[in-house]
């Protein structure tokens, strides 16, 4: 079983390098400021040998979005969760981590498509599932279900 590193310990390590980046931590996760995300991610990738990005998830908390990065070291068999918040609802932008983990490419596009969060520095920031011209981002809590094709929503 992969050992989950303790959030406060990793936060302390990051804090020595980036004093303003940390906004908090809990048992398994470290919260960082979104502007400092790329620098922090690069730092812990190297210092903790986190060679694998399991997944990126976006959560809509209505007053802000939260991005969750599950990171694992396949070599050292440990992992940590990195979280960042984005308070801008109209035009949310977060730095892309594709330059660190190639696997982030499609996942960031998926988040852009369904949640409407742009990733700065992504090589190909466009919709992945829905088509060009689709109105809105369907996984947002305030998305209204209007069925294309004329049918009425049964929900």
């Amino acid at each position: 079983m992969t050992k989950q590193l303790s959030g406060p310990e990793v936060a302390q390590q990051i804090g020595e390098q980036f004093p303003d980046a940390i906004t908090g931590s809990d048992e398994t996760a470290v919260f960082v400021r979104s502007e400092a995300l790329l620098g922090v991610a690069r730092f812990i990738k190297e210092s903790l040998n986190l060679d694998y990005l399991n997944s990126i998830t976006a959560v809509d908390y209505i007053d802000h979005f939260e991005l969750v990065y599950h990171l694992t070291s396949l070599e050292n068999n440990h992992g940590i969760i990195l979280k960042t918040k984005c308070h801008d609802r109209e035009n949310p932008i977060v730095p892309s981590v594709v330059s660190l983990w190639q696997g982030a490419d499609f996942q960031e596009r998926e988040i852009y498509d369904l949640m409407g969060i742009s990733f700065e520095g992504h090589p190909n920031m466009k919709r992945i599932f829905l088509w060009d011209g689709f109105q809105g981002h369907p996984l947002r809590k305030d998305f209204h279900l209007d069925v294309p094709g004329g049918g009425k929503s049964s929900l």
Partner: protein
Amino acid sequence: MEIEKPYVSSELDKTEGAEIEALIAASKEPYPDPVSWLDEEIQRNVLLASTEHIIGWAKRFSVWPVAMGLACCAFEMIGAAASRFDFSRFGMEVFRASPRQADLMLVAGTLTWKMAPALKRIYDQMAEPKWVLAMGACTISGGCFRGSYSVVPGLNLIVPVDVYVPGCPPRPEGLIYGFMELHRKVAKDKLIKK
């Protein structure tokens, strides 16, 4: 020298988006189910009666489906094709990847708006006579995804459907019953259409 790219991906995206939007706008009313075969007893052409019977018999046992497994129903379709249920008994084991060689479009699974233009194009490429079998709740009506933003609420908005096989997913027995109903319909298909 600068090499000219054969296409620009953002242009392709725009074309695709416009095609899907146009299809959504054009797909407000379902196609009526083809039911003219039901009153064939009255309208049967006496001259062709026995020829039609023989050709109909030949046609019904050589229906080649085009592979259109879109979601989980495809596994039941594959199950029905494999040795246990074996629908090659009906002369329809040859799943064709080319619509030009197929008579039946076996739509198994959830149809999304992004897939719909491709499905319609494949249907248009099939040679007449052609039939469509809608397998499973999602294909028939959108199923439990009917209220979704991305799912077509009914295959008959896109193409006319000959046989509906309900279920989630239907078992191979159900699919085979659907085939038998389709065979009845194929056998009664008129050689000369009005």
